[in-house]
């Protein structure tokens, strides 16, 4: 029960952070990518603001074997920069530019994003299923959590 509560709390704080930082506004995200137009650096501030507390958290995590709720603490190492990572990131970058949304903001804006946001989210599903068909990851988590 506690695990569910804290998972929902993390999700809620993350979503409100995305909302307040302006990252659910697709024009702001595209404005960051548009270096030839009226460049909008906001996304860099968001990333900077998020990386600082997270870097501190990794430091704390490094000396712990278990999390507060008793699960094993992940100690991911350095994985390889393989073709899957590069090809996937190229495709993601193109899609991100086209619509101005990535998975987090797509979910965070679901309640006010209208039918367009719902269509975008549903269009992600066949993409995710295709990727799973190409090579199924070992777990739902990112590769570098399993690459110890």
């Amino acid at each position, binding site marked *: 029960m506690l*695990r*569910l*509560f804290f*998972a*929902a709390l*993390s*999700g809620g*704080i*993350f*979503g*409100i*952070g995305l909302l307040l930082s302006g990252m*659910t506004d*697709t024009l702001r995200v*595209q404005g960051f*990518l548009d*270096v030839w*137009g009226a460049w909008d650096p*906001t996304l860099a501030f968001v*990333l900077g603001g*998020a990386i*600082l507390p*997270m*870097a*501190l*958290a990794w430091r704390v*995590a490094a000396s712990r074997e278990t*999390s507060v709720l008793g699960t*094993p603490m992940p100690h991911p190492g*350095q994985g390889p920069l393989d073709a899957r*990572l*590069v090809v*996937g*990131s190229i*495709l*993601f970058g193109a*899609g991100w*530019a086209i*619509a*101005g*949304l*990535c*998975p*987090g903001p797509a*979910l*965070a*804006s*679901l309640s*006010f994003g*209208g039918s367009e946001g719902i*269509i975008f989210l549903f269009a992600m599903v066949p993409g*995710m*299923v*295709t*990727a*799973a068909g190409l090579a199924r990851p070992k777990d*739902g*988590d*990112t590769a*570098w959590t399993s690459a110890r």
Partner: protein
Amino acid sequence: MIQPEWIWGLAGGGLIGLAAAMFLLVQGRVMGISGILGGLVDGSGHRRLGENLAFVGGLVGGPALYVWWHPGFATQISSELWVLLAGGFLVGLGTRLANGCTSGHGVCGISRLSRRGIGASAVYVGVGMLSISVLRHVWGIV
């Protein structure tokens, strides 16, 4: 000149980092949205089904409550069908192939100086900038 959007960006970014820090230290997990969502879609995250659903519930519900309290947010997303379908498909396919998106590779990866996180982020930001250049300034369609 410092713009108010930058301050909001920094503050909102701080909340994003706080959420990721909490997910790591309390839950013992790396906060990657494409991984959590993809695990729900393709069934690979079945061992953490409840937790993943609770996280997504908070991610959708938190902003919903905030917007209900303080209306005036908009995604300003294009209503062109090809943008929504192609954008969504590429984001879904790409993030799952790369095993991460802006949260997993960006926030959680860069903050621990992960080679994969930094490499992936450099590629998707670079390709994103290149794509916008072509789509907006050459073809004028986005």
